[in-house]
């Protein structure tokens, strides 16, 4: 029984990453209408920038976010201007391939700069003992970060004029433009926002595991899975979806095998697409 809870506790840190990445994917899809294969690589870049801050400049882990934040803003800007804008009129399949190319490019650049050897920063160790189950501090930290990310986004979307304009543009771009919203600028803002979320995820990843150029890409499919099951473009379903998939993955991986766990997630996505394609939150699907 203890093993069961222990597995769940460890899975929580996965859930947190999925929440952040899934939210970022969903936000981008909701506003721009594409699934971005490079989203995980934005997280990788953020994590490496953080690593640079810690290992080279001497920042503390948390303080490295002061570097990550501007970096993600820049990445978001570049992504929007150099990739999204020129391909606006293209066949969506081509845009997907383009984001794939961006992912590879990013992986290559990271590898050229930092090499392929896994890198790590000094981590926060230690754990609480809750009735025989170890609850690492890092797990709690990941929950806090995920809460900040998701909570922050919900506040922005729900309570700020900017957020309102994002929601309007996501619902109906033409309609939004008709009421005077500068759709291009809102898109840009949403893209940057989604990349900043991956920055938070990058900060989290630095505590979780060793960094490789592929650390983000390896997770991105699962982030897509969470976003799809949650309902693309809707932020409401994300937490339940991340919880379900994260825990299911953890349990299956613990009791059976990691490969079967991945297959299970794949199965969950297929099931969702076949049975309830709009996901948990019931998004309007854009194909």
């Amino acid at each position, binding site marked *: 029984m203890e093993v069961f809870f222990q597995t769940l506790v460890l899975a929580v840190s996965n859930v947190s990453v999925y929440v952040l990445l899934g939210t970022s994917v969903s936000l981008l899809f909701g506003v721009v209408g*594409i*699934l971005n294969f490079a989203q995980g690589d934005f997280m990788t870049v953020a994590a490496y920038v953080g690593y640079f801050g810690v290992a080279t400049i001497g920042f503390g882990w948390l303080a490295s976010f002061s570097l990550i934040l501007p970096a993600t803003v820049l990445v978001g800007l570049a992504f929007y201007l150099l*990739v999204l804008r*020129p*391909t606006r*009129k*293209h*066949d*969506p*399949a*081509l*845009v*997907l*391939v*383009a984001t*794939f*190319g*961006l*992912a*590879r*490019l*990013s*992986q*290559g*650049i*990271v*590898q*050229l*700069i930092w090499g*392929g050897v896994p890198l790590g920063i000094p981590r926060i160790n230690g754990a609480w003992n809750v009735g025989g189950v170890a609850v690492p501090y890092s797990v709690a930290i990941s929950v806090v970060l995920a809460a900040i990310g998701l909570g922050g986004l919900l506040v922005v979307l729900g309570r700020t004029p900017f957020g309102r304009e994002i929601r309007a543009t996501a619902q109906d771009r033409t309609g939004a433009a008709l009421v005077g919203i500068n759709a291009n600028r809102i898109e840009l803002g949403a893209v940057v926002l989604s990349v900043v979320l991956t920055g938070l995820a990058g900060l989290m990843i630095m505590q979780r595991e060793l960094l490789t*150029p592929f650390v983000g890409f390896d997770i991105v*499919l699962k982030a*897509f*899975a969470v976003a*799809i099951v949650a309902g693309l473009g809707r932020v409401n379903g994300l937490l339940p979806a991340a919880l379900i998939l994260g825990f299911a993955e953890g349990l299956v991986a613990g009791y059976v*095998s*990691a*490969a079967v766990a*991945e*297959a299970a*997630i*794949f199965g969950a*996505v*297929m099931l969702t*697409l*076949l049975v309830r394609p709009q996901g948990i939150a019931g998004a309007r699907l854009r*194909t």
Partner: protein
Amino acid sequence: MSGQMSGVLGTLRARPVIGLVVGLVVVAAVGFAPLDFHSYGIVVQIYVLAGAAVTWNIIGGYGGQLSLGHAASFGLGAYAAAWMTYEHDAAVPVAIAAGMLVSCVVSIVLLPCFRARGAYFAILTLAFASIVAQLAREYAPNGNSGLIFDSFPVTSRAPLQLLTVGLIGTLVVVYFLTRSRIGKGLEAVRLDLDAARAVGVDDFRMRSIALLLASLLNGWFGAVYGLNLGFVDPETAFNLQWSITPVLAAILGGTATLWGPVAGAAVWIAISELISVGDLSGGAPLVLQGAALLIITILLPRGLAGIARQVVATLGRRAGPDRARIGDGAAEATDLEEAKS
């Protein structure tokens, strides 16, 4: 001068078979020519990639569904062939047949995914390939260490000959596929799904046939690749490369064209060789791939075939009435899609 070219073009348009045969003769000539060691290696690379790209094109170009899981059929072909040789000392044809069969049968799992379209389909195929790779890492014979075996004597030219035969066969199959009822059905589904369904085209059947055919044929190339290497492990066989480079080659050359993927493969390998960074494990190949994909998809979405078509159109303007052919379908398709968006 352009009058002369119109003549040649006019003939080609009236009898596309001639173009096919000429192309196949070139492929055969290069494949069976006495090449020096270095050139041999390059042609092998080109033909493997061309095979993977042409087979991908069946699903992705003609079928209109972006598949990012082509590495699965490739790797399965390699593994099955390797296993037959390693464990059962099978003859080469048997090993290749096993590769094709396994690749085709396993891809049946993907069939339900055809309900999904566009990005969802892409994700599902990528996930599929990723899971197959993962399962291979955990459960394949010899697991991660891979299988080492002997298939061909070192100086043998047989691998390239097998690849040539496979490429010719695949091109012939694709040529006749596009002119068959199934091919027309695929084109209809690709251009306008609702209209196709309205006239009674069973899109699920069309796409299923496309998928099974593509994996079957890709298994050939994966098998020969594996046998040629004499070494197969999950990392090389199921490497993401094999999902990406065929797509790159096909888009570069022109999707939904017969020779586009072949041309794209040749150009891509040439570029890789030119910018050859001896160290294959560094970040440079990734940067190259990524940059190329970005440039091609953003600037050259119709690929070289699109450029060629424009050149031909400008030069051959006096060639006479245009008969709509499958090749043109690709241009019309992208026009339609652009008009729709």
